[in-house]
């Protein structure tokens, strides 16, 4: 590009303004990326939900339990391949800030229903044999520096007199996908059942079932809910993605909130950079007029303005993404599990960069068109 020295020189014409504009881009990109990461964290369960999995919960609400006998009855329905159940434990490790989800799981069927959680066979076999054993996600293990063989005390907050339950950490699971949930803590449902008060015994928090085919989902869900209608524990059966979406919505309409804030960020940034470019172009009216006088075409003038705004946007965008890349893991750790793990994916980085370029083009477009249409005679007269 023959005009690069002109573009480069124009970029650094007002250094303070350049730094402030790039700074505003960077901060907006950090905010934009953070919002995207939070949104992704909340919707991750929906994205990774198996199409061939259904979740059964108590029709009254998620905190109400169901009899453990439902498992065998559900297993008998045609189209159901495997059934497993979970129970929420809600314990505390050392401090309430150290939140991570703990589930009492059905050791026999859990792996069949959730093949995406990968535990080395030797660790799993140890866990199966160890009634006080536990398996934890790699992220949580890393967070607290746990390793297989460690003894993990968890304060009991919901069930019975035993104040602290101690577990042997037998294994650490990973997920197939990089953004999979590696925060859970699992232990034996049998161990749970033996130690909880009578009112909680022989119950499941929810059931997860794997189907022979996703095509059976509607029929099986209707059959299950009909089967337990008018019982003491009526059920609500839905696909795993619908369950995850409903769960995320308990926090409010996160997606709408994030879209709204994101739009405000976008338009504010557009106004800031658009105004900056407009001022910058207005200051150079006579110079642009001279360029046109000596033979630079209208399109080239537009191109020069657009390249300038896009370069500013790219620098600001890259700086913002770099800051986000550095800050998001720190924020994620600082949140202590209050939010699902915040993961900045390559896709989000690419989207952020495209977002920056779009703002760059949009903010340079109006001043650029103005410069393109500017009459040389009038512009020179203004000098």
């Amino acid at each position, binding site marked *: 590009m023959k005009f690069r020295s*002109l573009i480069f*020189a124009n970029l650094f*014409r007002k250094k303070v303004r350049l730094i402030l504009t790039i700074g505003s881009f960077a901060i907006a990109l950090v905010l934009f990326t953070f919002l995207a990461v939070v949104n992704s964290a909340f919707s991750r369960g929906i994205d990774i939900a198996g199409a061939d999995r259904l979740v059964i919960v108590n029709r009254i609400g998620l905190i109400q339990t169901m009899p453990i006998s439902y498992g065998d009855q559900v297993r008998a329905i045609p189209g159901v391949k495997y059934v497993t159940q979970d129970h929420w434990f809600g314990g505390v490790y050392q401090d309430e800030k150290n939140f991570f989800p703990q589930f009492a799981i059905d050791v026999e069927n859990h792996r069949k229903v959730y093949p995406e959680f990968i535990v080395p066979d030797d660790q799993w076999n140890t866990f199966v044999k160890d009634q006080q054993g536990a398996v934890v996600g790699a992220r949580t293990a890393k967070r607290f520096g746990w390793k297989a063989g460690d003894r993990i005390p968890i304060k009991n907050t919901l069930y019975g007199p035993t104040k602290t339950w101690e577990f042997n950490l037998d294994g650490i699971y990973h997920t197939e996908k990089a953004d999979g949930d590696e925060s859970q803590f699992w232990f034996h449902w049998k161990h749970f059942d033996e130690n909880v008060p009578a009112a909680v015994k022989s119950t499941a928090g929810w059931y997860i079932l794997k189907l022979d085919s996703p095509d059976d989902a509607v029929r099986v869900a209707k059959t299950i809910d009909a089967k337990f209608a008018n019982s003491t524990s009526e059920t609500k059966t839905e696909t795993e993605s619908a369950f995850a979406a409903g769960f995320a919505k308990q926090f409010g309409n996160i997606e709408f909130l994030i879209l709204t804030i994101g739009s405000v960020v976008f338009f504010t940034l557009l106004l800031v950079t658009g105004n900056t470019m407009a001022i910058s172009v207005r200051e150079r009216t*006579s*110079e642009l*007029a001279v360029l046109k006088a*000596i033979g630079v075409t209208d399109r080239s003038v537009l191109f020069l303005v657009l390249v300038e705004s896009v370069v500013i946007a790219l620098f600001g965008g890259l700086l913002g993404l770099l800051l986000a890349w550095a800050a998001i893991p720190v924020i994620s750790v600082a949140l202590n599990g209050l939010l699902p793990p915040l993961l900045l994916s390559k896709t989000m980085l690419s989207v952020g960069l495209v977002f920056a370029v779009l703002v760059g083009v949009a903010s340079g477009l109006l001043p650029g068109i103005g410069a393109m249409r500017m009459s*040389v*005679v009038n512009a*020179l007269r203004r000098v």
Partner: protein
Amino acid sequence: MIRVDGQGSGNSLIQVRGLSKTYRRGGEEIQVLQRLNLDVDKGDFVGFMGPSGSGKTTLLNLLGGLDVPTHGSITVAGDEITHMSGSKLTQWRARHVGFIFQMYNLIPVLTAFQNVELPLLLTKLSKSERRKHVETALSVVGLQDRMNHYPRQLSGGQEQRVTIARAIVSDPTFLLCDEPTGDLDRKSADEIMALIEELVAKHGKTVLMVTHDPVVAARAHTTLHLEKGVLVEASKLEQGVVAGGVR
């Protein structure tokens, strides 16, 4: 031979016929130029004088293809420019016209070298060829040792020299100077005029210049007076008037 009667030979470098320019301002029509004729040959140096608002700069803008006339035609080196499209006119300007402005209008963030190089960026010349041309142009104006200076590091006279170098670097058909010494002290103005004279005498450039200053105008081969949009007088006293034309 410069003529203003429209009776030129037809071989003139610049032929202007029946040129009129009317502006509308607040619903009122203002006729700036009225059926103006002009013939300028290659190597001529013509000065335009006249009071403010007489249409000097408008004439220069029309001759430089920066503006379009209401009526009439302008033909330069056989190209009739009055009916060219905007983009064709832009290309034509790049090839045929060198502009020298009163306020220099250099790009402040570019060095003298980069400013002079600008018109060449529109050509297919290689980087080394461009450098050669720029160095030649800067040596013609005596600023080869200042090529890496920014406009703020140059005096007004030096800035105007850079503008002249920028105007001649692509070897245009003619130069248009709008008050080239208007912002300079007398000494610098003399130096600039000497340079323009040299461009005409040594390098055979054709120069059309607008000025308020009679001393500067006297340096031109011919001075034409514009009053109320009409070329009413042609003077270069010592050369006399010939049948409405002058030399």
